[in-house]
């Protein structure tokens, strides 16, 4: 009996090994373990086994059943796995083909730059200031210490609509509007369109500026430099340096032109910085106390800092765009480069 069982196990092992499909292994299972299978047949022969050997033989039979069951189940698992693998392989796709519904548009390079700058300053406690593009002479010039017929008006040619209504020439007009309506401390950053009658490779009759204004009790020219350093290092890179050069704007005193070390050559001199290592990017200064007083802010108590920059110019430098007119052509092949 024992020999028969051992032989049966050998047969089962062989049968399992030779099974290559799920149907085949099923048959093997039925053949050995089924109701009329070999093992059952063997058990039927138990009656011929002497009484005292029956427990021992019963143990062998059970062990054989367990073993064959394990073998067939393991093989079934393997074959099922192989079958599903094969099915998936048949469904395989070319994973290098393009994805679907991936169409994504783009923000204009000027918007990208403006967003970046606005984000830097809002994180420094600035709110977004706004004002109209069609503006009163009062807010664009007079309150900013540029009286009618002052030579400083020559600094900015102006599109007039009536004698005292014009297209704002700078976002500084938002300064005046904000100061009239807001109590210090004031920190605003004001992006917006401005207009001047110029049209060439580096000037557009419409362009965008970003104006910043701080009015507080104790602010200094050093704070202005610190603010602009923080801004420049976030916008370009952490090694960017800031240089002040004396200048004149009617609404700030002292006034400075602000140069940043060239982000392309890091000060060595290149085409972008015209070999100087510096790029002129901002005008800034301490708000002229006359402007504070004009706007109803006590210049004895408060001081102001202001700065302004041209968005197009920064975008041209940051992205290496050679001609401002490209920014207004709106060729989708150009626009799509700025995802």
């Amino acid at each position, binding site marked *: 009996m024992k020999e028969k069982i051992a032989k049966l196990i050998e047969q089962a092992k062989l049968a399992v090994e030779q099974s290559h499909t799920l149907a085949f292994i099923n048959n093997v299972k039925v053949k050995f373990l089924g109701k009329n299978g070999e093992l059952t047949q063997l058990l039927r022969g138990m009656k011929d086994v002497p009484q005292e050997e029956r427990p021992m033989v019963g143990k062998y039979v059970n062990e054989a059943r367990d073993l064959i069951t394990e073998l067939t189940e393991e093989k079934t698992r393997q074959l099922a796995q192989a079958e599903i693998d094969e099915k998936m392989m048949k469904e395989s796709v070319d994973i290098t083909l393009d994805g679907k519904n991936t169409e994504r548009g783009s923000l204009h390079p000027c918007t990208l730059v403006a967003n970046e700058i606005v984000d830097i300053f809002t994180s*420094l406690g600035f709110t977004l200031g706004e004002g109209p*593009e069609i503006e009163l002479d009062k807010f664009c010039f007079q309150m900013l210490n540029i009286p009618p017929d002052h030579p400083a008006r020559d600094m900015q040619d102006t599109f007039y609509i009536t004698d005292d209504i014009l297209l704002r020439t700078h976002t500084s007009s938002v300064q005046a509007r904000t100061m009239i309506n807001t109590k210090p401390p004031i920190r605003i950053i004001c992006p917006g369109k401005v207009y001047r009658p110029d049209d060439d490779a580096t000037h557009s009759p419409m362009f965008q500026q970003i104006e910043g204004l701080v009015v507080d009790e104790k602010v200094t020219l050093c704070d202005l430099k610190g603010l602009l350093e923080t801004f420049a290092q976030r916008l370009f890179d952490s090694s960017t340096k800031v240089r002040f*050069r004396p200048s004149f704007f009617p609404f700030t005193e002292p006034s400075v032109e602000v140069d940043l070390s060239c982000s392309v050559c890091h000060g060595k001199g290149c085409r972008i910085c015209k070999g100087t290592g510096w790029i002129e990017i901002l005008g800034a200064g301490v708000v002229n106390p006359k402007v504070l007083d004009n706007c109803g802010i006590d210049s004895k108590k408060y001081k102001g800092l202001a700065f302004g920059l041209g968005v197009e110019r920064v975008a041209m430098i940051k992205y290496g765009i050679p001609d401002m007119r490209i920014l207004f052509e709106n060729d989708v092949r150009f*626009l799509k480069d700025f995802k």
Partner: protein
Amino acid sequence: MKVSLSWLKDFVDIDVTVEELADKLVGAGFEVEEIIKSGANMKNVVLGKIVKLEKHPDADKLQICQIDVGKDDLIQIVTGAQNVSEGDLVPTALHNSLLPNGQTIKRGKLRGVASDGMLCSGEELKLSEEDYKGASVYGIMLMNGEKYPLGTDLNDVFGNDDVILDIGVTANRSDCNSVLGIAREVATVLKKPLKMPEIGFKTDKNVKIGDIVDVEVKAPDLCPRYMAAAVTDIKIEKSAEIIQKRLKSVGLRPINNIVDITNYIRVEIGQPMHAFDKNYLEGEKIITRRAENGEKIVALDEKEYTLDNSMLVICDEKKPCAVGGIMGGLNSGINDNTKTIVFESAKFMRDNIRRTSRTLNLRSDSSYRYERGIDFDSQRLGLMRALTLIDKYGYGKIADGVIDRLAQDITTKIVETSVEEINSILGIDVPSDVILSILNGLQIESTLENGVLKCVCPAFRDDIENANDLAEEVIRLYGYDKIVGTLLVGGNQTLGGKNRKQQNADIVKEICVSQGMSETLTYSFTSPKCFDVLKLAENDERRNCIKLLKPLGEDLSIMRTTLAYSMISMLASNNLKSNKKVKLFELANVYIPKSLPFNELPNEHSMLAMGSYGDGEDFFTMKGNVEVLLRRFGIVAEYKRSDINYLHKGRSADIFVGKEYLGYLGEVHPEVANSFDVSDRMYIAEINIEVLNKLADYSYKFMPISSYPPIERDIAIVVDEDVLAGNLLACVKKGGGNLLVDTKIFDIYRNESVLGKNKKSVAINLVFRLADRTLTDDEVNAKVNRILTKLSSEFNAVQR
């Protein structure tokens, strides 16, 4: 402002290179825009002498010259010129030389004979007869009689030894629009003393100024000071060489000795002057007064100008002789027969000069200078200096005395502040002795007593009014590199960020980008023709637009009232560039006047324009863009057929929320597309963002999800072709009541033989559900029947 180095050296010792000087000026706030070295365009051209001349063996018209250029060896040059002979002094361009006309000369051979350079004509040296006598002759310019040694660089012979600095003077520094003013700054940055211009002349005691002229100022508000002097026995001639040379160096054309002096003084001292021919003045007096309205004058430019009473004229007792500070009258000018002149040295008000100059569209060097502002001191200095030059060069006899009509007392401006105040502006501690030394160096007399910094400002610094002005003077000379960045160390904390409306603008842009659109940037001004291109009705209110007074051109002359035209233009320009599929958007303002004629600020509405064309784009993709946008802001809109003229009649919709008009979308009218030369179908939408902001629903509310199963039914109905799906669904929803949680159209079928003419079959999916229990079939059937009844009565719908 152009100044020559040699002229500056009259007033200050300059012992640094011009580059160093330029750097220092930039550091002090004076942009040096250009350094022009005169003679830089001519190199290696020297004075030579022809010592031997012989015929070229192989060319009749060429001569071989042996030239002495002061070296041991002669050089050989072949020339084609015939006007030279042995012994002549000639301009000799050596091997590797540069000529002012841009030509470079190299050694070469002419018909087999070596030539080591070239002899030059006056033309090649860009010289006129005025510049050098004999320069205009045909052939080589002969320089016989020159005393310079042979081999001398011609730049030295011609006096091309000067350097011109082109300096940008900011609008606050009117005092620096003169050589003397720049010299004052140079003296400051170089820490050298300033030498004032030399003054001193003798007068003709027999002739009193009063015998020649008197002055009456009738408009002291426009002419606060008027000084005059007279010169008799004038001989009009060319100016002294140095005056001519200096005027030329700053780009002025020498005219005659008297006119040149007025120009010289304007450049040197910064005081515009005028010289009247006494012979031309009628009566005894020069009168300055406001012009009469309609009064006319013919100016030196030979044009007639009509004046008004805001303008200042300088008159004799009969007629106007000059537009004050701007231009003299044609007949009062100096001419070759002028014998007696009256010099005018006056202060006119800068804003008035500026206004008059712009009104008349008449500009001159004088008006430019006056517009920048003149202080009260320079009238006397300018006049004295002019008389000094007259006397020095013997141009005439100076009448005894000057006339000085001064309308107001000249007061000295004093600014009082403190060292602490100046440092609180700068944020650094500049020592008080440094502050005092800088200010005093600028001729701002400053003292520190009991903590009070008292600064007495000289007349030429009328820009200085307060502590900030003084702080600027201190730091520009102390050095901006001393300013060290701090981050609002003394500031109060503030809360930054964007408000809801500003955030919405960002969201709108991001949605457009994620829908595949690229952002455009177009001008806010546009062409008035755009309304006709868009086929807007004559009474369409968008034709009411704001016009610029002086636009850059007709095409940029009005402020846009719609973004449609720009959007279609940009689609068209992309189409023209063969860009196959294009989706664009722009978020920008339109400008709607509140009233016309325009007299108050307009409404500026933020609008979103979207546009597309190309494969896969249609009315519904554009509608999808609109729906995604509105869904983000919780807005449910109704779409009604639109009658906008530039849109396709059958494929356009107005977007409403209740009675509120939000915008429109649709296919661009084929004729409009045609006028842009586009044959592709284009789709646009324009959404009023102000209305969107107003309607936006930001409330999010939790709704429990029903755990009971839904019951779905599909119905198919036949209706007339012109029944709108939106109306059908609205009717279905009404019939379905609360039980109907969702419904949508999933198929539309047309077949004339099955359904009949102008009929369509619409298949509608209905989803019913209750939150608290399972619905029964009977309940659902009742609702479906109710829906079908309603559809039947409202639209004649027949169930299929």
